[in-house]
Structure formats: structure tokens, C-alpha cells
């Protein structure tokens, strides 16, 4: 398995889009930290970029890569290799490449300018988000055979997680405005890795006091050690479940 991962990473790291993505993140994070007068504010500006750009690039790049590798996958399948090995290798290759790109582009500036609990939380969730959206992209790509359709699905999924889901939440909140929704909201937030990451990061920042305004429920849950551990567990599930589903599908897929 290691053998294939190695070559997938070599291939992706040479990719121009990947290079551009890394540079873009680097540029943004450096300018954000240098332009803002205090770095806590820089983090806040970086927050939105990470929550929007990272999932978008991860999901699009992975989906396109999987489609473009269709023939290569066929070749690999014709070799004495387990399909599981092939699929997980491609996943690991994509995940580690995107994670490396994020780490170089955003992680290093964060460590340089803001090596605090907030910074580490941002780094951790950013890395996890990169991997989560690789997993989601691969699920979308294995289900949809047609490339154009598959990329469309990937864009829709990104739109759903970064925008539509929140719109739905807002709609539900207003529909059930007369009911106590705080506790349910904690559960709902686990249904979207982007929301979950954002809440985790915000609670490490001093703007967390604003979140306490709604009753201390968010802070009492996500602010504690158990809460953070549970959230990371949920984020890990967001990697494991799509990967597992896509693997099942790939095992039975006709190439």
C-alpha cells in the first residue's frame, strides 16, 4: 500500500493547482497576520478563509483527480492488488497531499504568528477538514460515473456544507422558535463538519463570550475537554464513514 501512496503523493505534489493552492494559502495567511495589528484578529479573518476555501479546494481537487485517474485505477485493478489497497492508497495520497498543502500554506504561518490554543485548534480542524472533504469527494466520485455530473455533485456538496445547511438550520430555528432548541443545536452542529470546526475554533477565541450569550450550552459542551474530544471523534467519523461507504462501492464497481 505504501508503494502506491508514495507515487500518488509524488504525482499530486507536482500538480500546478496544488502548488497554486499552497501559495495562495501562504499569501493569504501571511498577509492576514501582517496587516492586522493583532494576530488574534488575523486568526479571525483566517477563520473564514479556512472554512470556505479548504473544503472547496479539497473536494474539487479530489473529485477531479479521481475522475482523471480512471484509467490509472483500471491499470492498478488489473494488477495483483486488492481493490481496498488501491482505493485507500489513493485516499491516503490525496489526503496527505492536501494536508501537507494546508500545513505549509496555513499551518506554518499560524505556528509562527499564533502558536496558541486557538492556533492549534485552527490547525487541527483545518487538517481534518482537508481530509474530510477528500473522503466526501471520493464518495461522490465513486457513486457518479459521469465526470461532469460528478464534479457538479462535488460543487453541490460543498455548497450544501458551507451554505445551504446553515440556511436550513436557520429555517428550522425559526419554525421551532417556541421550543428550547439549544441542546438540539449541539447535536445538529455535528451534522456539518464545517459548522463543528467553526464552533470549536470560536470557542478557543475570546469572542467565545458572545456565544455564551445564548445560554452556556455551547461552551459547556464544546468548551470542555470531553466536548473537544467528542467533537474530534465526530470529525474523525466524518472521515471514516464516507471512506468506508466509498470503499464498499468501489469494491463492487465495474471499471
Amino acid at each position, binding site marked *: 500500500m505504501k508503494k502506491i501512496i508514495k507515487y500518488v503523493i509524488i504525482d499530486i505534489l507536482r500538480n500546478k493547482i496544488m502548488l497554486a493552492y499552497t501559495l495562495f494559502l501562504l499569501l493569504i495567511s501571511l498577509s492576514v497576520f501582517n496587516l492586522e495589528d493583532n494576530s488574534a484578529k488575523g486568526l479571525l479573518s483566517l477563520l473564514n478563509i479556512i472554512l470556505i476555501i479548504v473544503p472547496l479546494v479539497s473536494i474539487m481537487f479530489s473529485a477531479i483527480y479521481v475522475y482523471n485517474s480512471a484509467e490509472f485505477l483500471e491499470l492498478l485493478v488489473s494488477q495483483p492488488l486488492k481493490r481496498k489497497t488501491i482505493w485507500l492508497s489513493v485516499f491516503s495520497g490525496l489526503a496527505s497531499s492536501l494536508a501537507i498543502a494546508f500545513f505549509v500554506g496555513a499551518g506554518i504561518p499560524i505556528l509562527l504568528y499564533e502558536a496558541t490554543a486557538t492556533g492549534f485548534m485552527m490547525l487541527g480542524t483545518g487538517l481534518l477538514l482537508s481530509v474530510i472533504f477528500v473522503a466526501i469527494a471520493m464518495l461522490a466520485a465513486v457513486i457518479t460515473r459521469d465526470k461532469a455530473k460528478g464534479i457538479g455533485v462535488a460543487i453541490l456538496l460543498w455548497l450544501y456544507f458551507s451554505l445551504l445547511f446553515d440556511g436550513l438550520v436557520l429555517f428550522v430555528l425559526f419554525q421551532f422558535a417556541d421550543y428550547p432548541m439549544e441542546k438540539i443545536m449541539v447535536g445538529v452542529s455535528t451534522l456539518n463538519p464545517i459548522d463543528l470546526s467553526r464552533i470549536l475554533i470560536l470557542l478557543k477565541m475570546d469572542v467565545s463570550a458572545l456565544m*455564551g450569550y445564548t445560554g452556556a450550552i455551547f461552551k459547556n459542551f464544546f468548551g470542555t475537554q470531553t466536548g473537544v474530544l467528542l467533537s474530534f471523534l465526530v470529525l474523525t467519523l466524518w472521515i471514516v464513514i464516507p471512506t468506508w461507504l466509498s470503499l464498499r462501492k468501489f469494491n463492487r464497481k465495474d471499471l
Partner: protein
Amino acid sequence: MKAFITIIVFVLFAVTGNAKTIRVGKLQAIKTIQQAIQIAAKGDTVLVDAGLYHEKNLIINKTIFLIGINHPVLDGENQYENISIKADGVVVDGFKVVHSGVSSIEDFAGIKIYNRRDVIIKNNILDDTFFGIYSQYGTNCTIEKNTLTANSKEEQQAGNGIHCWKSDSMRIIANTISGHRDGIYFEFVTNSVIWRNTSFNNLRYGLHFMFSNNDAYITNIFKNNGAGVAVMFSNHVKMFNNYFEENWGDASYGLLLKEISDGYINNNHFTKNTTGIHMEGASRIAMEKNVFDNNGWALKIQASCMDIVLTKNNFISNTFDVGTNGSLVLNTFNNNYWDKYDGYDLNKDKIGDVPYRPVSMYSMIIEQNPPAMMLFRSFMTSLLDKTEKIIPTLTPENLKDDHPLMKPLPL
């Protein structure tokens, strides 16, 4: 300084003739202050040497000058009220008052004034007292340059730093108060002034006003208290040049105004508070030249407020400028500087040509539906705010500053 005051006192009473000075101390004839007070007459000075004194409850029932040299320590042994003042015109100067009794029935204090007037309490250090300095029906008293420290952990078992109840014409000047329940507490206190005090790290409020009219507090610093400063059920209160800082917690604010009328809030600084000012049922309040920076909400004006006039204030780096819970707005905003203003000034008169709406859509949503805080700083909500700016639907139509300034005022 001490010596100088003593000389002045001597000269004064030398002139009036019959006043004398009684020395108290280990090396003096009179060993306890209690003894000294017994033999003292009205107008005498009791001069106390440095040292530790176990006076139990020291009752001052004559008009005397009680002056400590190098802060003699009065230990209340966690049982007694250290000093009870039960005569007019008493001066208590330069003592260290420690370990007062703690009781849930009686309000033990380090120094307490009972129904008296013209008392002066100054230059004392109070440490580990239940209540610090307590005025009950005091009139025309001065509490000046005292340092009050306590280490209260729970609100129920804590007393207030400077506590005034049913008092009038009080002067609270240049005290430093920390670790109490409320730093300064006023209930039914009138015509008084609170000036140049520093109140920090108190469990509840830095300053707490209840039913106290015609008072002023000026140039005080309220920092890092549990919930900031609360001014409730009072009228004609003037708040000038104070600093409200770092009241940063789930339900904190710099200043809470509740059922307040006819107040003035000028030249204050609100920095790093969860909410700069929270107003409920406030009316006829003029706010001018205040600075709000780095607050969660700079201002929360509930719909129950009316005739609040905000002019020439600076709003800088606040997450939300103004929050409100209704659509009816009877308050006026004019000539303020808002750093989020993105309008233009074509005629170069330094006043923006289009109005600024300080209430964002998202802040309205949270006000109506607090769990929506889950979406704080999400793409969705910033998009909503942008759309709302173009087509206002949810935010109050007339809550706006028609003449926003282009540049911040030099405050």
C-alpha cells in the same frame, strides 16, 4: 504627611484651647485604643503607634480624631466588626483593618458608620473584611484613598467593598477596591459623588446603583468585574469620563442601565466588554463623546428604551455595533463615527452622504432566536448581512445614523 496633619490638628486644637492628644501603643501608658477612647473628650486626638491591636469591636462614640502611625493593625479575629462609628465628625485615618467577622445575619464591616454625619475615613487599608466600609444613614461623609481587598469566592458569602445605604451627600474618592461582591454599592443614596476610584476583580459589579438619584460618578476605572457596572432604578445620574474595561464573560457588560431616566453618559471608554452598554427601560439619556471599541456588542438597546440620544460617539472594532429586540425605535443616532460604515462623502464635509444602519441582520436574528448563535461567523450569516444592507427587511427601518462621520473623533 502624617506628621504634618498631626501638627495641623495640634495647632487647630491649641487655638480652640481644650483639645488634647492621647498616645496609644505598646510602649505608651495606654495600651489599647478602647481605653484611650474612654478617657478622651470631644475633639481629642487619639494617636496610635504601629503594632497589632485586638480591640474586638472598637466603638467610637465620641467625636475624636483616630489616627494611626504607620498603619497599626486592627484585627477583628474573624468575629467582630473592627470599627463602629457612632458619633458625628469622627475621623479614622491610617489604619490597617483586617479579618472582620463574617455573618449571614449581620452586615459586619471593617469600618461602619451608624446614623452619623461628617465622618471622614481615609488612608486606611482593609484586608479580608466582610463588608469593607459601610455607611448606614450617613450624611456628608468622606471615604477617601482607602485600599480595600477581599478574596471572596462566592457571591452569597461576600460583602461589598464600599457600601452606602440610605445616605446623602457622600464623597467616595480615590479608593481602590477588589475581590468583593460589588466594589461600590449605593442603595437609596442621593446627592453623592464617586470620583477617581478603581474597582476591579469583584465578583459581581464594579459599581452597583439602586434607587439612588442625583448622583455622579466621574473618572473611575471599572475593570474585569463579574458583570461590569449596574445602574438601576435611579434618575438624574451623571456618568462622566469612566473606563469600563474587560468585563468579558457570558452575561457580562460594561454598563447595565435598567429603569434609568434623565442621565448623562459622556466621555466614557467602553473597551473589550461582551456588551458595552445594555439598556432596558431607559429614557431621556444623552450620550456624547463616548468610545466603544473591541466590544462584542457596543450597545444593546431594548425596545423598552426611549429618547436615548447618541451623538459624536466612536464605534471601533466591535463585533456588533447595536443590538435591539424590536422594530419600534424611539431613539436618535446622529454624527457618530462607525468603523463599519462604507458609505461615501461626495461633498467633502466629513459627513457620510448615506445613512448608516448600525443593526445587522444577524444581530436581529440572534436577538429573536438565541440558538442561532450556532451560526456565528458563518458564510451564511455574512451573506445575510450583505443582502440586508441592500434590501432591508428585518432590521428596524428608522434605526439609523443619518449623518455618520467619515473620520473618528479625537477622543
